[in-house]
């Protein structure tokens, strides 16, 4: 039972991550490979505040948002001047730089040793330590992320994002300052990812840089693409499939040395297959990248 709850919490956290990436990749057509770094940024901000300065988890979430927005500007202001695949490469570069900061700025992040004893989330002095309680918090965050994305995409603002995805020059010709729209939506997406990171840090109570590598970024990209970029339930389905599928391997009884490799083989194969045969994903209506 504990195990099933753990898996469900992971599904919820990854849903937040893939919903936030889908806002960028699916709805605006900007594929970012830096979401694991933004996820890590939230995790580290909140973990450091609560362990070093003893602030409440709530303050951790708020500061993580501020940090995520500021860093998202550092990433998006230069990268968004680039197109399609060059944007991917630039965000890839930022992912590597941020990972290097997590890994090498030992005075603050403890480097590869990571941060231990991160407090579990608490609201009004009441600490949530049961798995069921944590699952409720994770679900609330996932629902919140969904509400934010649905509100954005069904507003006039969201229409401009879709216009940017379909034909940016045309959107600009209509007088839309597309660059500003893109920077804003990147900041929103970064905030949601950072919050997923906060929740992750306070849920597992131990973080190290290995959770925030570029491989993790690729995993989130796979979730969005497998589920269906730019669709309502796609990110949720993608996150569920890609979290649950490797877990079934464990039940089948694959040796654990192979399991980690094998799950990445699955992610990679799914990416190739989806890109070649079904770029709209399982439930999507929009052919990604066409």
């Amino acid at each position: 039972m504990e195990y099933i709850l753990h898996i469900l919490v992971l599904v919820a956290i990854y849903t937040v991550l893939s919903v936030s990436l889908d806002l960028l990749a699916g709805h605006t057509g900007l594929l970012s490979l830096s979401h694991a770094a933004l996820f890590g940024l939230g995790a580290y901000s909140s973990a450091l505040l609560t362990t070093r300065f003893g602030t409440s988890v709530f303050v951790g979430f708020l500061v993580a948002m501020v940090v995520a927005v500021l860093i998202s500007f550092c990433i998006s202001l230069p990268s968004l001047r680039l197109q399609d695949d060059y944007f991917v490469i630039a965000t890839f570069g930022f992912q590597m730089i941020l990972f290097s900061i997590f890994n090498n700025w030992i005075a603050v992040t403890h480097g590869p040793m990571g941060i231990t004893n991160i407090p579990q989330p608490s609201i009004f002095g009441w600490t949530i330590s049961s798995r069921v309680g944590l699952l409720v918090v994770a679900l609330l965050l996932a629902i919140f992320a969904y509400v934010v994305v649905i509100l954005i995409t069904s507003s006039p603002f969201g229409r401009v994002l879709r216009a940017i995805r379909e034909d940016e020059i045309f959107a600009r010709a209509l007088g839309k300052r597309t660059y500003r729209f893109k920077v804003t939506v990147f900041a929103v997406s970064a905030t949601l990812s950072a919050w997923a990171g906060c929740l992750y840090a306070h849920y597992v109570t131990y973080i190290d840089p290995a959770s925030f590598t570029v491989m993790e970024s690729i995993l989130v990209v796979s979730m969005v693409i497998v589920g269906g970029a730019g669709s309502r339930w796609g990110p949720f389905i993608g996150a569920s499939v890609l979290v649950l599928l490797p877990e079934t391997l464990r039940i089948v009884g694959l040796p654990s040395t192979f399991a980690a490799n094998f799950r990445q083989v699955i992610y990679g194969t799914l990416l190739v297959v989806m890109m070649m045969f079904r770029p709209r994903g399982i439930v999507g209506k929009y052919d990604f990248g066409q």
Partner: protein
Amino acid sequence: MVRQLLINALIAGSLYALIGIGFALIFRVVKFFHFTHGLSYALGAYVAFGLSRWSNLNLVWVLILAPIITAVFGVILYAIIFQPLRNRRATPLVSLIACLGAYLVGQNLLSMAFGDDAKSIRGDVVVLGMNVLGAYITLPQLVIVVFAIVVVLGCAVWLSKTELGTQIRAVANDPSLATIIGIASDRVVFLTVVVGTGLGGLAGGLAALDRAIVPTMGLNALLMGVVATIAGGKESLGGVAFGAYFVGLAQNMVILWIPSAWQDSIVFLIMIGFLILRPQGFMGRDTGRSAF
């Protein structure tokens, strides 16, 4: 210290030039970031490792066979990745993601086959290198430097003087125009992918002589090749080589001022700087699709 760093920069730059040339060659005709090139590099290193561990061949044969075996892998890669993407007229972004997926599969297959621990074909004896102007360089490192020069010059001559080289440049410049004048584009792309992959295997085989062999070696090396290509300008091989030595130099000289752990971050900052300020690179003319 400075002299040793310069020698290290020369060795690193030579490796990046070898990776970058193969990468840029393929990039010019397919026009997307084919991350699978990192796989060719790692495969070349593992083939060299396997041959020297489980056969009696001497290192010269290892270095001849590693690129050939990797080139055969290039044929498979073309059949299952490049050809389907071309048939579907996939956009560069879609192709990039597909290649990223293929890279992920390959890297993990390597690590399942050989394990995650670092392999080496140097043996246990630590040899002090030759003394050149007060800095040390070992024989394998010298081989890498010489090979880089030979490959860069060889490719430049091959592209400008031979018929296939001219066809490759034609397809790189304008695929439809090349087809109109009767060049079989598919065949040219196929041969470029095979030769480029073989060059990646050669780079990996050479790197195996000097460095630790791990399944993840491909991605980092490939990124250095990508940065070299972007910094140098992807339109000319001379530019790529120049970019490679520039990256090697930057990466090694920053050690004078900051801890070596930050080397790679500096390289990525340089890459982002180039993408934004001078996307055509040092030497490139902006002929193709621009980054903006």
